[in-house]
């Protein structure tokens, strides 16, 4: 257990020393500032213009928040993959892993330690960015979306899912191949999500099925759409279509699938790393 924590701390410290944390936090803050300024002016117009009714106003605020979270979701996914894509394969390729593994440690402790370190970092990132967007909308617009906690938790699950898949790839492949694989899978799920969304709009069951199948390959886009569905205003939920969600809402089964998927990915990563010749 102690070894796991030592490795987790090392992972954290590496991100700090290599200025990854600094870059992420600095850009995150810039993003939030730009977002806040934009929201401030939209909100000001909204409050003064007499044309928009009460419902309309909260719809626009909700839309603005969802747009922000959509970007945050994408940034979080990028963070999850980019920070971890190199961690196992890079250390194996450079040989820094040799002195670690030659210590009285077990291989799983290294993988779990790294997973723990990155999870901690990504949790803070999701809180900063996602929480930041929600806070801007609440503080400046006085609007609170439904199920924010549930939505942010799902975004967090998405990040952990991609982290674990990237660790699995890193335990098996080279850094570059791992990056190509993870982003490729993410791309398929992303495309599948849109096919499903449009399919449900035009009521084409085949298109919806293609979307569901692509979500089974990796359920990352499905989790985001569920998160968006949770935080959507009741009106949009009833209408059943917005750029961020669709009439075809990923079921709770899909969420359970994502949790199992993430867990198995981590277990496989441990297994691969344990069997690998270093």
């Amino acid at each position: 257990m102690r070894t796991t924590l030592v490795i987790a701390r090392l992972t954290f410290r590496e991100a700090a020393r290599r200025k990854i944390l600094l870059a992420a936090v600095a850009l995150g803050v810039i993003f939030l500032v730009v977002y806040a300024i934009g929201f401030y002016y939209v909100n000001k117009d909204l409050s003064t213009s007499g044309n928009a009714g009460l419902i309309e106003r909260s719809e626009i605020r909700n839309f603005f928040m969802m747009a922000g979270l959509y970007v945050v979701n994408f940034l979080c996914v990028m963070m999850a993959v980019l920070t971890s894509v190199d961690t196992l394969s890079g250390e194996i390729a450079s040989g820094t892993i040799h002195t670690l593994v030659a210590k009285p440690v077990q291989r799983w402790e290294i993988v779990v330690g790294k997973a723990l370190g990155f999870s901690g970092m990504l949790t803070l990132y999701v809180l900063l960015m996602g929480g930041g967007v929600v806070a801007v909308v609440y503080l400046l617009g006085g609007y609170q979306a439904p199920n924010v906690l549930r939505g942010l938790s799902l975004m967090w699950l998405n990040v952990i899912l991609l982290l674990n898949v990237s660790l699995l790839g890193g335990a098996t492949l080279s850094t570059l191949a791992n990056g190509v694989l993870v982003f490729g899978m993410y791309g398929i799920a992303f495309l599948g999500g849109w096919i499903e969304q449009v399919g449900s709009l035009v009521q084409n069951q085949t298109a919806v099925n293609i979307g569901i199948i692509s979500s089974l390959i990796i359920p990352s886009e499905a989790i985001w759409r569920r998160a968006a569905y949770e935080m959507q205003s009741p009106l949009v939920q009833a209408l059943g279509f917005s750029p961020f969600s669709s009439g075809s809402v990923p079921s709770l089964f899909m969420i359970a699938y994502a949790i199992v998927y993430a867990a198995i990915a981590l277990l496989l990563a441990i297994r691969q790393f344990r069997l690998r010749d270093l």
Partner: protein
Amino acid sequence: MPAAIEIHSLRKVFGEKVAVADLTLTVERGEVFGFLGPNGAGKTTAVKMLLGLIAPTSGEGKLLGLPLGDHLGRERVGFLPEHFRFHDWLTAEEFLRLHGELYRMSSDRLRQRVPELLDLVGLAPHAGKRLRTFSKGMLQRIGLAQALLNDPKLVLLDEPTSGLDPVGRRLVRDIIHDLREGGTTVFLNSHLLSEVEITCDRVAFIKHGVVLRTSILQELVEGELTVEVRARGLTSEVLSGLSRWSPGVRADGEHLSLTLAGEADLPDINRYLVERGVDVYSLSPQNISLEDLFIQIVGTDGGL
């Protein structure tokens, strides 16, 4: 007490390539053991199998009495890898601290041990510098310090002096000497034969992943010797008579070269030659160097 290293028929195959064919070896406690062989002989693969970095295809072994791959067996084992690449964004002190924590040493012990080791390898003035700024020699020193953190019972050094200047080499030699005095077993993987000649008690020669020969260095170097003889009147009859002392007699005009098992035979050979009417001008014994022996055992093809 179980041997420091004990391996039986260890074999490793990568795809089609046989890296280590069949390695059987025992290293006793307290020995300084040299592992010699040409490049690509499987030395590094063998060391990695000992440390559980690579799983053997077949065969078995024990490290300090525990099966290979058992992480507890590495508790009191120090290792300096050949291509010492470390987390270079850490400072020297942080680096040693990290590795001490991986040895599960207490922080009290580390507070005492880290400065001790920095001092030992001459890096105390650089304790707060990041490894990124270190020269190759300094990295090797910090790597060596890392291998000694937990008062190891066994230290495996993979080419420890390859990047070092003469001062650094002397340091490594002194450290190995101190380790031996303290009863630590040292497994030295090297092709710098002069280094091995000075430091090791026993050596194994390996090629294509097989131990060709294991010998006590003292016996090796003091035992076998070649004798260069300059004499006139050597007949083929006289030459063939010499084979009773030496299996390999090479004659070229007045020059004669013999390989003997020990110097006790020298007076007999001289008497034999004189009694047969040979005029002996010089008879000079030369101890065989480890390098000659290496070439003799391993061959000149470099194991290719």
